[in-house]
């Protein structure tokens, strides 16, 4: 963003361009990913429960089918809630980003294109995760309330497809940090010609 506009925010920005040492969005996104991925995996485990029952018996871990669906449901709710914060911090940090303009990522995109795609993708993914939570809730409390398999196969299929989208989206975000060095203190120091080995320990 325009540096004069950023100045108007009156934030005390560090060398990394943020008012704090470590960016929050990359931390929160791991919660989004962990919760969402476990939600889908446990629903899959619940759906194919008759196949895996002997495995759990062999391992001596008592497993109840409805328990797996509980994990699927509550983890998905957790993912929905936390993702609002993930996206909010993502936009805050995106606005304060000051990427190099002369570099191309491994995917052949420049920093601004990567930022736009990652920002728009973030909103769409938030919408998708919330929509899946509503869908999952309807299955749990209405449509399949009395079924032994709480989730539809279509829901699981969409969930697995989401893994692929999240992977692409996450790689774009990872490139912003690891290739363009956005909000990385040492990278900013090098841009200014300073030596990062002088950083405090």
């Amino acid at each position, binding site marked *: 963003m325009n540096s004069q506009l950023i100045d108007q925010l009156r934030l005390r920005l560090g060398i990394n361009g943020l008012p704090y040492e470590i960016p929050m969005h990359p931390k929160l996104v791991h919660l989004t990913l962990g919760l969402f991925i476990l939600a889908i995996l446990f629903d899959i485990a619940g759906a194919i429960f008759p196949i895996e029952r002997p495995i759990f018996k062999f391992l001596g871990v008592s497993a109840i089918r409805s328990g797996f669906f509980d994990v699927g449901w509550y983890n998905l709710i957790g993912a929905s809630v936390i993702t609002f914060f993930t996206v909010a911090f993502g936009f805050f940090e995106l606005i304060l980003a000051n990427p190099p303009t002369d570099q191309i990522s491994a995917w052949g995109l420049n920093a601004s294109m990567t930022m736009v795609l990652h920002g728009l993708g973030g909103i769409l993914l938030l919408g998708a995760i919330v929509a899946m939570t509503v869908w999952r809730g309807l299955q749990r409390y209405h449509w399949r309330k009395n079924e032994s398999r709480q989730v539809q196969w279509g829901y699981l299929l969409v969930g697995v497809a989401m893994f692929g989208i999240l992977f692409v989206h996450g790689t774009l975000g990872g490139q912003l940090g690891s290739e363009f060095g956005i909000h990385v203190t040492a990278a900013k120091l090098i*841009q200014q010609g300073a030596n990062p080995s002088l950083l405090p320990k």
Partner: protein
Amino acid sequence: MVLFSFVCDVLGYFTHNTRLFEVGFWNIFVAAIAIFVAIIFGQFEAGLAQVYPAVQPTLNFHTVMGWSLGAIVAIVTAWRFVIRNRHPHKVPPAYLGTATFLVCLVLLQVYLGSKLFWVYGLHVEPVVEAMKQRISP
């Protein structure tokens, strides 16, 4: 996963929604497996990193904490497993206290690991490039 397991166990304890205990158990169960995958990748990437003197103390601390957490999470998960086998609908306050401590350790470890990337720029391309030029001019 440790964090969410803790949240579920605490919510379950106070709301008496015993389903949440099952969610808490499975989350820490997966965490106990996943942490060893994380340690292996961490060791691999730490070995490949361009470590300069300012980074060393943080990296060492992160490594020691990582292995310790591997052991601690395994022990706490084993305890959680015994609790679940004996009383599936109860979680004792002593466990919640230990889990609180564990959550603090996890947050510290996340902070250390973040510092390696976001402050010191390990495996960040512009930093790696600059290092290479300095070593082989």
